[in-house]
């Protein structure tokens, strides 16, 4: 899948602005960004719903706008709002879509796979938000697609269903399918994606493996949680190396802005031990994807 200098305007506003990236076969690729960043518009162009204003896209070597007929049998789509009629039963809609493909998965097997066997005969209107999401996911898979688009696949799912969905997406990729997903959840992107693109206001601001993105940012830091109101000056004095700042972001949530060396962590641990302060959690080193995301998309500092 190739996105090449893609732009799309709605009136005066550029929703997608000179966006380029490629997705390799068998890859799980995440498109991240705040609301209104142009994620869904990008996905809808790749799905063939919208036409680019400038630039081009290629999906499985085809143009989704012009070659829809050839492309659709090979692609699975999960829309952000599932596109399910409230009066239809879960197994009916799967059977319906199975009828559109030459060699579909069995509807029963799919219901089992997404954990909806018990509600197979329930109307969509009786399903919970998470169950509808799982049904929409099953619909995306019914045609044994080579490529799957998942627009916020785990929105509204409980933690159990999310974990199960992650396993499912990984197994798709292991089976050779390519997956493009959008998500708000950074832990999802970290767990699931081989590579992610972070977009903001239609522009690409970062691209790479989730683990690499944090390393690219200059300063590292050490975060820990402990009792609120610790004496931060005393802590700074106890550290062998100079630190830029020790910040209490929220009561009990501390951040030491300095290179996260083992020596620094040892000094921190000793200081806490000497005062018999229990420690909630500790993370040192590169930023999490969430931190990278907030930093890149928040205040425009790096744009």
């Amino acid at each position, binding site marked *: 899948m190739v996105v090449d200098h893609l732009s799309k305007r709605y009136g005066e506003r550029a929703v997608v602005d000179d966006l380029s990236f490629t997705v390799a076969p068998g890859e799980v690729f995440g498109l991240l960004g705040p609301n209104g960043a142009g994620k869904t518009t990008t996905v809808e162009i790749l799905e063939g719903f919208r036409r680019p204003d400038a630039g081009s896209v290629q999906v499985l070597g085809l143009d989704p706008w012009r070659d829809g007929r050839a492309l659709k049998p090979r*692609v699975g789509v999960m*829309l952000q709002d599932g596109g399910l009629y409230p009066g239809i039963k879960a197994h009916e809609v799967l059977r319906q879509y199975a009828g559109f493909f030459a060699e579909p998965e069995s509807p029963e097997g799919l219901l089992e796979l997404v954990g909806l066997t018990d509600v197979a005969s329930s109307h969509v209107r009786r399903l919970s938000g998470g169950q509808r999401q799982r049904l929409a996911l099953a619909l995306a898979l019914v045609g044994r697609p080579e490529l799957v688009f998942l627009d916020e696949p785990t929105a509204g799912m409980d933690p159990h269903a999310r974990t199960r969905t992650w396993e499912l997406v990984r197994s798709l990729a292991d089976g050779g399918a390519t997956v493009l997903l959008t998500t708000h959840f950074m832990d999802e992107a970290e767990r699931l994606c081989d590579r992610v693109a972070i977009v903001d206001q239609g522009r690409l601001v970062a691209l790479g493996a989730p683990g690499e993105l944090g390393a690219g940012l200059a300063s590292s830091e050490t975060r820990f949680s402990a009792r609120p109101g610790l004496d931060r000056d005393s802590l700074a004095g106890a550290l062998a190396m100079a630190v830029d700042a020790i910040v209490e972001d929220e009561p009990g949530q501390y951040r030491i802005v300095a290179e996260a060396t083992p020596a620094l962590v040892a000094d921190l641990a000793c200081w806490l031990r000497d005062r018999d302060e229990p420690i909630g959690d500790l993370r040192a080193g590169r930023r999490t994807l969430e931190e990278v995301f907030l930093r890149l998309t928040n205040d425009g500092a790096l744009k």
Partner: protein
Amino acid sequence: MTRSVLAQVRVELALTLRRGESLLVALVIPVGILAFFSKADFVDLGVETPVEFLTPGVLALAVMSSAMVSLAIATGFERRYGVLKRLGASPLTRGRLLAAKITSVLAIEALQIVVLVVTAVALDWRPDAAGIVPALGLVVAGTVAFASLGLLMAGTLRAEATLALANGLYLVFTAIGGMAYPLEQMPRAVELVAQALPGAALSESLRGVLTDGADVPSWSLIVLAAWTIATPVVTSRLFRWEER
């Protein structure tokens, strides 16, 4: 190709039969009008044999209810819920979706026609046998015109507006479509307006071919042909697949 159309037809039929209100407008009301007015002596329709007048009228009413009212409401809400959009991402092409919708409308109409004709014959209706084949042709033409009108509403208005307008038009055409009450009995101005609309055009043409010794008024064929040709063109230009 046919397999995907059939998969869609099956769903269309299941959903239509599941909607109680569509059965009401499709069967209960037409049968009720036919049975009640052909037997009720206290209602004077100003015609010699009520069943001869009423049967073509309720057949037109049945076509209108399925092709326009049910189709418009179902499609309008499918559009609202993003069902049409989701189908657009599947290998079912728009042409096949339309074919499936028309097939299921025709199937429901066949059921309606059987029920209505059996009821009418039980009420001593004796149609002109030579008119049966032309009548089926008129039913198909009327289906195209009314289905296009229904899809025009569904593809341009919000779902609630489609619901209200489709039901409103059902009442209007029932009243001034020559379906339950003769046009000639109405004020001249109303009659002229009614004659320009597809409801009266279909019911009067059906009445002409099915009634022994009656002629088909030429205005009704011209008006019906005009709606049958014009509305699909307008609808195909204005229909939007997503509600925004």
